[in-house]
């Protein structure tokens, strides 16, 4: 389990002091895939660097697996209940138990794939033969056996990230930190890296903390998510709940970014023909959730309330195995019938938002 509590990190810049991470508390269960999403500058990168103390937090406590609890005060780190100052060596020891991968892979260009993966194993007291066996295991794990003598410049982005993952796992960490690991990859490579991460999570019980600015990544593999804005965590929970019922504005923006329905706002703004409503017509946005999708609500209301529905946009996706989505449509009929229909929808767990009345 990873427990972060009241973590703070500020940077003193010329323009003033920046709260990169402000009073962040999070609990991440073992074996979870935990996403942290936020726009650039939200502090998510700093937060993840605080977990392996690449960035020394100003204050807060941190417990990862059995290491710790670590207490940070005035940019110094102490371990245990009686707050013993932590030495450089212990810090390095602790970092070895946490793997990390990066947006730009950060492989050594002058080393082969083999040597890159062997990097964390060398000078750790392991024999050459044991290192070789372990590297071969890892090459097998990330499916790059045939590239062991290649140099990073000879690999594709996806392959480089696989090497980086193998390297990060060399010391058998229980936790893997991923700092925008798919942001520099094309969609296909992104998909393959994400499925590799998912399978590592399942096979090795690896806890993965990943930060990203892409909703698609969160939707693809995360079980829990924290939304960050200006150094603060503004919303947490399991991915479905957070994105089905976003409470904060920023969360809504992320949901919209990955949702075809958000296009209606642009259409409205541009006064498009598609969303023009005549007399007696109402433009509505319906959002379905776990309990409502699947019911034939559309045909039911058009039958029972004598209204007609013209679908403008529709999108339903599957999040954690449950459908989530919605529809933008123009509803037409007697005003009383329309009101009744909308009320009925609300009673059946469909969120209804009136965008425009004719």
């Amino acid at each position, binding site marked *: 389990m990873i427990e972060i509590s009241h973590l703070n990190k500020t940077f003193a810049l010329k323009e003033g002091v920046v709260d990169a991470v402000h009073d962040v508390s999070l609990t991440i269960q073992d074996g979870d895939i935990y996403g942290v999403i936020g726009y650039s500058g939200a502090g998510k990168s700093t937060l993840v660097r605080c977990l392996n103390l690449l960035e020394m937090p100003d204050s807060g406590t941190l417990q990862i697996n059995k290491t710790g609890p670590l207490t940070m005060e005035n940019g110094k780190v102490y371990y245990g209940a009686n707050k013993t100052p932590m030495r450089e060596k212990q810090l390095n020891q602790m970092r070895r138990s946490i793997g990390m991968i990066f947006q730009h892979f950060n*492989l050594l260009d002058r080393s082969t794939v083999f040597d890159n993966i062997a990097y964390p194993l060398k000078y750790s007291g392991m024999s050459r033969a044991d290192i070789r066996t372990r590297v071969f295991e890892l090459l097998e794990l990330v499916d790059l056996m045939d590239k062991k003598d290649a140099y990073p410049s000879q690999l594709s982005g996806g392959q480089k990230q696989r090497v980086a993952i193998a390297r990060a796992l060399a010391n058998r960490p229980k936790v893997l930190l991923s700092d925008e690991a798919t942001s520099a990859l094309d969609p296909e490579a992104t998909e393959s890296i994400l499925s590799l991460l998912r399978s590592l999570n399942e096979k090795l019980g690896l806890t993965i903390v990943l930060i990203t600015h892409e909703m698609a990544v969160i939707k693809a593999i995360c079980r829990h998510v924290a939304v960050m804005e200006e150094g603060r965590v503004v919303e947490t929970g399991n991915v479905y709940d957070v994105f089905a019922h976003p409470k904060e504005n920023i969360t809504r923006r992320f949901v919209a970014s990955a949702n075809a329905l958000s296009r209606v706002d642009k259409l409205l703004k541009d006064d498009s023909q598609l969303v023009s409503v005549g007399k007696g017509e109402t433009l509505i946005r319906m959002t379905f959730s776990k309990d409502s999708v699947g019911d034939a609500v559309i045909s039911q209301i058009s039958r029972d309330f004598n209204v007609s529905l013209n679908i403008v946009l529709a999108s339903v996706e599957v999040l954690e195995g449950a459908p989530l989505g919605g529809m933008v449509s123009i509803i037409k009929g007697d005003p009383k019938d329309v009101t009744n229909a909308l009320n009925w929808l609300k009673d059946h767990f469909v969120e209804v938002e009136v965008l425009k009345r004719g």
Partner: protein
Amino acid sequence: MAEFLEGIMPNVVAYQSRFITSLQQTVEMMVKSGILAFIIGLAFGVILTVCRKGGIRPNIVLYQLINIFVNLFRSIPFIILLIFLIPLTRAMVGTAIGVKGALVPLVFGCVPFYTRQVEAALASVDEGKVEAARSMGSGTLGLIFRVYLHEAVPDLIRVTTITIISLIGLTTMAGAVGAGGIGSFAINYGQNQNHQDIVNVCVLILLVFVCVLQFLGSFLARKTTNRGLFRKNHQ
């Protein structure tokens, strides 16, 4: 052969033992001061990289000490440095003349230049690689040797080549403190005695020196890009 050489450069042949000695002096100065400057400059360059603000072991005092030393000695023209350092040289090696006396100013003249070059070569190592190595638990020494120096090898070879070539230029001035070498041979036996063939041969010799070094440097830099200097086999 001997007759042919005597025909085109009579004075070089006449002074051939002096000429050979001069060559030996130049090589000796280059090798000795080169090795010293290489070690000190590399160490200084590493210290500047590691101790700078935001480096892996920030240490403003050590950084500024070396920084000021480098700036100070880089701004003194070498011929002035030669005579300026005479008291120090005498204190350090017991004499201020001859090859031995030239070594100290040569090192002082070369180290600041080389330090800056090494610093630039190390600065070209991507910070991300350093961060990744830190995340894998590498300590300061690991970061220096396994990341900075390891990744910068081709660049270090390039800057070392440039430095050695500029060192040749410095050794030719060492004649001013009686260290001999090709430079003083060209002036004393060539220019002063109006033997143009001696000057020409000296130019030619230096040209060959520079060409060979540059070729070797470029070759090694190319060879070490993307591969280990000595390739290991994991079969």
